[in-house]
């Protein structure tokens, strides 16, 4: 199988084939030796890349789009995001001039349950990335949820004093 992996602005071409129960792995045209073993189910791995040792937790993001897949990898206490694409699909896309682009979310969800303390915007308002939208109380703290891009508020679903569940839609953008 052939993959393209993207981490921030870096891109890697990876080929993996299984021959005689062994993995043949090529990274950017250079063969590498890998030893990849599950240390703790479901996703805690020990990985030796050309004898360099890495402990890692690999999580697949649940939402699958097209033939790309988002991963979160935690190594040495820090978390990294990686977009993995099937090379065939990537080629097709390039050919057709399709840009892989993050879909703009129309729905603004709360990342945690809590109590709405204040709504800082009104329907029809224009907001900028970084502007506060809603304050939600959880763990005895007020947490200001902010816009991550410029948008216009279409609809507000909550009011102060209202308890909200995780991933509940608080605001809909236009």
């Amino acid at each position: 199988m052939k993959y393209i992996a993207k981490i921030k602005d870096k891109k890697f071409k990876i080929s993996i084939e299984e021959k005689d129960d062994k993995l043949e792995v090529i990274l950017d045209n250079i063969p590498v030796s890998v030893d990849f073993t599950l240390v703790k189910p479901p996703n805690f791995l020990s990985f030796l890349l050309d004898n360099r040792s890495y402990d890692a937790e690999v999580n697949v993001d649940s939402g699958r789009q097209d033939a790309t897949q988002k991963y979160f990898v935690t190594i040495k206490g820090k978390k990294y995001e990686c977009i993995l694409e099937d090379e065939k699909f990537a080629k097709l896309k390039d050919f057709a001039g399709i840009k892989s682009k993050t879909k703009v979310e129309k729905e603004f969800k709360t990342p945690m349950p809590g109590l709405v303390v204040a709504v800082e915007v009104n329907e029809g308002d224009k907001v900028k990335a970084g502007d506060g939208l809603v304050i939600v109380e959880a763990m005895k703290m007020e947490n200001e949820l902010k816009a991550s891009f410029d948008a216009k508020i279409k609809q507000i679903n909550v009011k102060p004093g209202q308890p909200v569940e995780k991933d509940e839609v608080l605001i809909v953008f236009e």
Partner: protein
Amino acid sequence: MFKKILIANRGEIAVRVIRACKEMEIKTVTVFSEIDRKSLHVRLSDEAYFIGPPPSNQSYLVMEKLINVAEKSNAEAIHPGYGFLAENPQFAKLVEEKGLVFIGPPAKAIELLGDKMRARKTISESGVPIVPGMENMIASENDAISFAKEVGFPVLIKAAAGGGGKGMRIVESEKQMKEAIRGASFEAKSSFGDERIYIEKYLEKPRHIEFQILADKFGNIIHLGERECSIQRRHQKVIEESPSTVVDEDMRKRMGDAAIMAAKASGYVSAGTMEFLVDKDKNFYFLESNTRLQVEHPVTELVTGIDIVKEQLKIASGEKLSFKQEDVRWSGASIECRIYAEDPYNNFLPSAGIVSSYLEPSGPGIRVDSGLYEGCEVSLYYDPIISKLLTWGSTRNEAICRMKRALQEYHISGIATTIPFHLQVMDNKKFIKGDISTHFIQEEFGKKEITVDHDELYKVIALLCALTDFKEKKKIKTLKEKKFRESPWKIEGRRMGLRRFGF
């Protein structure tokens, strides 16, 4: 000494007190809300009583329930931990009225020092310098604005009953005042049940340095040196250390004397903390007193070898301090990283869930105070401090290097934690030099992303993702062929079994 005490708290601090009690052969009684049935404090204590639904105002904050449990279980004394009722003078009074011992200062001292305004007055009169501030509570927005104009912006709004950064706001300009007053008094009310707030001059780039004191019932008061607590986020301490890089022997003596004076003036008994702000010229100002065991007390324990919880218990049971100021010896350096259940990759929003995988760092110079275990739940009802990771080193540099090593070893899955953030701080040049103030995080991490680039790791990450996908697809294929699925543990166990033998 007591035979049995009630611990009116939960989580890591309840576990901390249980450990001290076990080592002194004191039986422990704990309480738990519905969501805390499996919490480590319940599992480790000798007795545990159910006290109601998860919200703390229906369980951990209900004084009558706690008194009932103490009476039913024949506990002689109550340790309040920190937070909840720890600094509530009514609770301390009630405990004493019921013929029980409150493991903390007398209700009067809590009342005096808990009222920031009275505390400032009393302490100031005893000769200890204080930060310039209004003499009364904030009555109106205009009131606050005119004070701010007098001493100059920025000013600091603080909860009269406060602590732990809750109900606190910096106000940089007139137009921020209204929202700041509203937010601070809301938080003050929800955290302490007291919405009163006051205002003081905000010192530029101060250091936040506090002194641990111990006072027995016979008027003996000593201090255990300072803790540097300048590394704060949203006015909450996140990293503490002892000694401070700015405090020399002479300054330690002068500040320690001031802390003892402040404790004397307020009739203090038990373990407590006198907090100071230190300006660029090493002038110090009394800020407030915390009339309880502090979250960060272990850094002092690591450099002095004194178990502060045990001393609290001895003092409460009427023992005299067994050592004098000159017996206190400091050795090496200690750092604490507070591990919060907050997501540093998502604006430090709270995170909750089941801890699906857990491995604590260990080995030389490491201490972990936590209530975590594999399979435990972190809920959104309570304080986000889920663990305190401490290191000791013969030098500050060794303590920092050890902390980096420990943070990398510390593995908590299932919830987001601030471990990546702490790793960033340990790599920060200003932090390593000790060139810090309470503005450190804002200045150093304000706009920057948490994750810096690690070019050498990118290849590894790319390969891990590709291999995971490859393996997953192969598994699906194999499963289709095999038409049944075994648990990974079973497969593992069998494989191990196969090669177990072969001498």
